[in-house]
C-alpha cells in the first residue's frame, strides 16, 4: 500500500490554508479488517490525511526546505464514521508558523456532515534536531510533493481552458 492519504488538492492558499479530497474505495485494503462486515475508515488514517494536507501546507510555505514531521496531535474529535464511497474533504488552516515548527487546525467533511476535526503540531527537524537524519529531505521526497505539483498542473490547465480565446 502506498502511503498517500489524499487524492487531490482542490485549493491551496500559500501559507494560509489548503483543501484536499480523498475518495474512499471499498477496494482499499484496510476496509477488509476494519471491520469485517462493517467497513469504516480508521480515525488514525483520517488524521493522516489531515496531516498530509497540513504538512504540505507547512512545507510549501518554506519551499520544502524543512523536514516537516507530525510531532503532536493537540486534540482530535470524531463526529461520524467514514464509509466506503464517501468523499472526504480536508480543510486545513495554518495557525502558527515559525522556524522551529508549525500548528494547523483541520476539519474533515463528508458532504455536509462533519466527520472529524483536530489541531496538529508539526516540527521542523532541521531546526529541532540538526543533522540527525542527514541532509536528504525524506518527508517531501516523492509522492507528497508530487501531489502538489499535480494540483498546480490541474490549476494551470483549468486557467488555460477557462481563459478568453485569442
Amino acid at each position, binding site marked *: 500500500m502506498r502511503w498517500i492519504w489524499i487524492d487531490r488538492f482542490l485549493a491551496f492558499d500559500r501559507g494560509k490554508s489548503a483543501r484536499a479530497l480523498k475518495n474512499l474505495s471499498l477496494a482499499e485494503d484496510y476496509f477488509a479488517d476494519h471491520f469485517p462486515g462493517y467497513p469504516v475508515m480508521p480515525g488514525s488514517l483520517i488524521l493522516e490525511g489531515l496531516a498530509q494536507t497540513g504538512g504540505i501546507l507547512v512545507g510549501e510555505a518554506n519551499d520544502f526546505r524543512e523536514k516537516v514531521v507530525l*510531532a*503532536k496531535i*493537540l486534540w482530535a474529535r470524531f463526529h461520524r464514521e467514514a464509509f466506503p464511497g464517501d468523499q472526504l474533504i480536508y480543510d486545513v488552516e495554518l*495557525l*502558527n508558523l*515559525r*522556524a*522551529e*515548527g508549525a*500548528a494547523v487546525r483541520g476539519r474533515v467533511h463528508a458532504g455536509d456532515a462533519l466527520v472529524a476535526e483536530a489541531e496538529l*503540531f508539526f*516540527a521542523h527537524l532541521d531546526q*529541532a534536531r540538526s543533522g540527525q537524519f542527514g541532509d536528504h529531505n525524506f518527508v517531501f521526497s516523492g509522492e507528497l510533493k508530487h501531489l502538489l505539483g499535480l494540483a498546480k498542473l490541474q490549476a494551470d490547465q483549468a486557467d488555460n481552458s477557462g481563459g478568453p480565446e485569442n
Partner: protein
Amino acid sequence: MPNQEEIYTKVSATLVEALNVDEDEIKPSATLQGDLGAESIDFLDIVFRLEREFGIKIPRGELFPESIFQGDPEFVQDGRVTEKGLAELRARMPFADLSTFEQNPELSAISDLFTVDMIARYIQTKLSEGKPAEPSVN
C-alpha cells in the same frame, strides 16, 4: 494589562491544554518536565499557545533557552554550572528563580528552573515591556 493573578490563571489554563494535565496538578512550583511531564516538543506548543493567549511575540530561545551550555567548558565543569555559567543564566533568564539552583548547580537539575511560576513571571515582564509609556504629567 492583566494582573498577576489573571496571568497565572491564563498560564495554568494554557498548560492544562498543552500538556493534558489536571488543573490541580498545576501549582507555581511545579516543574514542566519533572512534575507535568512536558517533552521537548511541548515547549514550542506552549510558546505558540502563550503567544495566542496573550497576544505577544516570544522570540526563539527567549522563554526556553535551548542548550545554553552545550560544550562550553567555561559555563560547565564536571557536570556543574560555574559562576560564569550562573551569571549567563541570570542574564538570559532574569525571570527564573535561581535561588535553589544556585545552592547546588548540577547541570542535570537545570530543567527544574522551568516552572509554572517562571512562565507567569516571564509573561508579566513581557507584557509590561510592551506597554506604551505613560504620558508624563507636567
